[in-house]
């Protein structure tokens, strides 16, 4: 057994709150990573993952302190080192790849310069060699045209390119270990899959150890040799990736795995009730209130992290034997419940030839008669039935949000018609009647941004009630608020809370209640679950499905997670660069024949199973504008035929009949069937 590169020994980190009380963030955490090994660190938000990652680099957030324990990196105590010693270890022996590379790069410095900085400070490379090495690094992270990229400022790169620059920056110091804090969260599935493959290759080649922090079990399954599961500041399970995904021994691991929507399974999974407590606030096991296996001892006695079976598998649970004895794979299949759909054969919203553009020609353009660039969204024809859920799917820049913005009246369409109950929705919201506004409601991705932090829940829900039901008395509105909160499964007492006093899932429920307060016919959901933990996501999906049934509401659902779409949608429209590629029912979309773009998206999905590899069909090169003619996907298509794709807009092809599944591609259906 080789020596450990880093050893976290019984580490507790905490801070004193305003009342002078000690609040734990990490509690008695012990783990180790060997040279070249990749440890995945998983858990819900607020479990202390990032704190542990930063602590490994000898960094504590302002106000936090080490209560006990230590971190030994190559035998050195990270919290006993001088500032100068820490500065020399960071970037050189241990490097960070942060979440949101766009914010982690200094905006006033060219990206090449930022890599050179690391090279100058952390390596022996000097003089002209520095620049060559920098270009080499940018090439190594597979950035096209490294010389050009090096001269750019961070904001001139796409999210995926920024993330690659940060990877190159971390590799520049040739560290022995990388700490990766959610490095692909917020990126497109395709970009994420490419970056993960890149990381895997580099690590295999250079023998770098990694600690990979993520809330996404699919990502963890793809990169990790070993997985540590964190709950409320403690490690609750630590085992090989294969073991933790195939036969998890902690009820929390089971709960998390069971709450993930699966690409290959229709239906919504069970959600895990509750949320993590403050570390160390419960006398017994922190997971007891949410645990289906809990017994009496669990609420009084904290369990030890102990070795089970022969393999190195650590679990912190009193009842692990009972957990292991329950067949997990069967349990997993049982938890998915299919949503009953009852879409009517009446159109709710009909989009015909809708074209939307952000381009506003200025004076010079008009004088020079510059030809207009291709519209951001073009040629969208969709018929959405009453009571149906239509999902819009595609990478960032595919025009999903643009279409929803237009339907909601935030952005006028350039041409085309959006028919809704004898009204045309292509006009802005200020030109719509109050009744029309009431019928179309929008729920945003991030409840932190969409709920006013200075309003109580009652005030938030009161707004649409006052606006759309002016005849309601105060008491009636009050009764309605409570009724709405109960419909989103929140206690009436939440009326007096502020958004800051609620968890992410609860806030999103309030946002949903606000939308439903208007008694809408159509609800536009823009990535409503992507800011939530998996454990909460399933509950929100469930809630949306139930609310839909009550009033036969129509949903237009934007999501980048294809498994979530599969769980909730009736029909799916796949978009690329603002053009439709494929439209069909969920079953039609999730099985061949695929549009090459749909196939690319499906291939890039990471499933929580270490044995499944993603299929990377097309590059993840971002495109800034749709092509002037031909197929929108021509530049990245893995099945590109010839000039035909470049020149001619592909025809719609119908695998069955003209009302159903349709694919916009030059390749014949029978060839598309071959995956």
């Amino acid at each position: 057994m080789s020596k450990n590169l880093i050893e976290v020994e019984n580490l507790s980190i905490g801070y004193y709150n305003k009342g002078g009380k000690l609040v734990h963030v990490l509690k008695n955490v012990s783990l180790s990573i060997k040279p070249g090994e990749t440890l995945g660190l998983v858990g819900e938000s607020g479990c202390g993952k990032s704190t542990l990652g930063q602590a490994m680099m000898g960094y504590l957030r302002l106000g936090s302190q080490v209560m006990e324990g230590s971190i030994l990196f190559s035998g050195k105590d990270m919290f006993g080192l001088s500032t100068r010693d820490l500065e020399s270890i960071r970037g050189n022996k241990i490097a960070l790849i942060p979440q949101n590379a766009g914010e982690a790069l200094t905006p006033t410095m060219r990206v090449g310069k930022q890599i050179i900085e690391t090279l100058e400070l952390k390596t022996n490379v000097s003089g002209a060699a520095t620049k060559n090495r920098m270009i080499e690094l940018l090439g190594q992270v597979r950035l096209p045209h490294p010389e050009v990229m090096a001269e750019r400022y961070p904001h001139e790169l796409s999210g995926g390119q920024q993330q690659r620059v940060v990877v190159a920056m971390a590799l520049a110091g040739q560290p022995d270990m990388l700490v990766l804090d959610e490095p692909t969260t917020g990126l497109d599935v395709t970009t994420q899959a490419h970056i993960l493959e890149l990381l895997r290759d580099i690590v295999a080649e250079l023998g770098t150890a990694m600690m990979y922090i993520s809330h996404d079990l699919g990502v963890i399954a793809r990169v990790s040799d070993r997985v540590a599961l964190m709950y409320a500041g403690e490690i609750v399970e630590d085992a090989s990736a294969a073991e933790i995904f195939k036969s998890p021994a902690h009820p929390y691991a089971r709960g998390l795995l069971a709450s993930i929507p699966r690409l290959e399974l229709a239906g919504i999974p069970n959600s895990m009730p509750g949320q993590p407590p403050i570390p160390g606030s419960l006398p017994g096991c922190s997971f007891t209130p949410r645990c289906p296996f809990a017994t009496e001892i669990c609420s009084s006695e904290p369990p030890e992290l102990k070795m089970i079976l022969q393999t190195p598998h650590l679990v912190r649970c009193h009842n692990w034997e009972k957990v292991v004895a329950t067949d997990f794979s069967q349990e997993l299949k049982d938890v998915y419940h299919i949503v009953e759909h009852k879409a009517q054969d009446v159109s709710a919203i009909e989009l015909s030839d809708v074209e939307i553009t952000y381009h506003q020609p200025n004076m010079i353009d008009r004088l020079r008669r510059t030809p207009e660039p291709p519209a951001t969204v073009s040629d969208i024809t969709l018929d959405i039935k009453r009571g149906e859920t239509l999902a819009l799917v595609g990478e960032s820049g595919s025009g999903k949000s643009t279409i929803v913005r237009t339907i909601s009246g935030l952005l006028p369409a350039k041409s085309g018609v959006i028919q809704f109950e004898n009204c045309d929705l292509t006009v802005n919201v200020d030109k719509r009647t109050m009744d029309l506004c009431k019928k179309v409601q929008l729920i945003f991705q991030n409840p932190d941004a969409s709920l006013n932090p200075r309003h109580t829940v009652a005030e938030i829900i009161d707004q649409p009630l006052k606006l759309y039901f002016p005849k309601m008395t105060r008491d009636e509105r009050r009764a309605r608020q409570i009724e709405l909160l109960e419909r989103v499964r929140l206690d009436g007492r939440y009326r007096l809370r502020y958004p800051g006093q609620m968890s992410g899932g609860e806030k999103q429920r309030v946002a949903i209640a606000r939308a439903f307060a208007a008694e809408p016919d159509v609800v536009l959901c823009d990535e409503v679950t992507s800011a939530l933990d998996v454990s909460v996501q399933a509950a929100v999906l469930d809630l949306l499905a139930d609310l839909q049934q009550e009033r036969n509401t129509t949903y237009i659902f934007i999501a980048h997670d294809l498994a979530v779409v599969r769980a909730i949608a009736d029909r799916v429209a796949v978009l690329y660069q603002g053009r439709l590629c494929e439209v069909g029912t969920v079953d039609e979309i999730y099985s061949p024949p695929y549009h090459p773009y749909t196939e690319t998206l499906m291939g890039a999905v990471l499933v929580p199973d270490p044995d499944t590899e993603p299929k990377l069909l097309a590059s993840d090169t971002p495109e800034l504008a749709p092509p002037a003619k031909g197929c929108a996907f021509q530049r990245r298509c893995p099945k590109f035929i010839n000039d035909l794709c470049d020149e001619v807009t592909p025809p719609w092809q119908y695998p069955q009949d003209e009302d159903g599944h349709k694919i916009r591609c030059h390749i014949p259906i029978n060839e598309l069937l071959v995956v």
Partner: protein
Amino acid sequence: MIVLIARRFILALITLLLISIIIFLGVEALPGDAADAYLGQSATPESLRALREEFGLDTPAHQRYLNWLGDMLKGDLGDSMARRKPVSEVIGNQFRNTVVLAAAAAIVGIPLAIVLGVFAGLTRDKWPDILVSLVAILGMTLPGFVTATVLIYVFSIRLEWFPAIAMVPTDAPVIEILPNIFLPIITLTFIMVAHILRLVRTNMIEVLVSNYVQMARLKGVPAMRIVFLHALPNAMLPSINVIALTLAWLLGGVAIIETVFNYPGIGKLLINAIGDRDLALVQGIAIILAGIYIGVNLIADLLALVLNPRLRTSRGH
């Protein structure tokens, strides 16, 4: 980029034109006119009419404005009625003197303000920051003439280091002016530093908690290098416009200071011109000050454009 600069430039010209109208109307609205002021007690209806005819005050207002505007475009600011000389000639040296004073204050004050601001930001809520901020608030809140008076009391009456007044001949060479204007420079610096310092401090604090500074720290970049290469450039961007405003204020707002120190600058000239109802002179000075104000702001906008890569390349939808 070029379109952007051109648009800013055109906007600046339009602003200047509007200001010239406002100045003209403002002066028109004053009770009495140059002839009244010039003749004073000895005015008779006949002499007034004669003088008004001579000054061209009997033509309608809009025509006088257009004449003035036309002359101005040719570089002729008209004649000072009270001083019986072309306005440009009256302004000439006094303007130079103000520029010397303001430039000296700026050269001392701006770097000082930035250094102190960074220092205060780095030692946030510790005693160096509290001390610097306290002095800055004093500078901001005390009226200029109070600051000037206190400084005169301390430095020239008590310590006898500097002369209390800056009486120099209007056309003295710069070398001879400088030794006499230490106190006005210190007064202006004291007032000016406060505004810039507070802003630099706030921006610095904001930038220091940003993700990229944290990243630089975790990348193992030495602390001083982080401050100067990663934090300062980003903290300076929002400060540029305030520095420009302060500069413009320096040129226009020194009137009181110049009066206190009896310094022959454009500010003092303006106050005298208002007293004399010397309309052409007031208009001339006002339009020059407005021009500088707009010009400095234009330069600041362009500078911000050059220094901020985000503004320079807009990557639209």
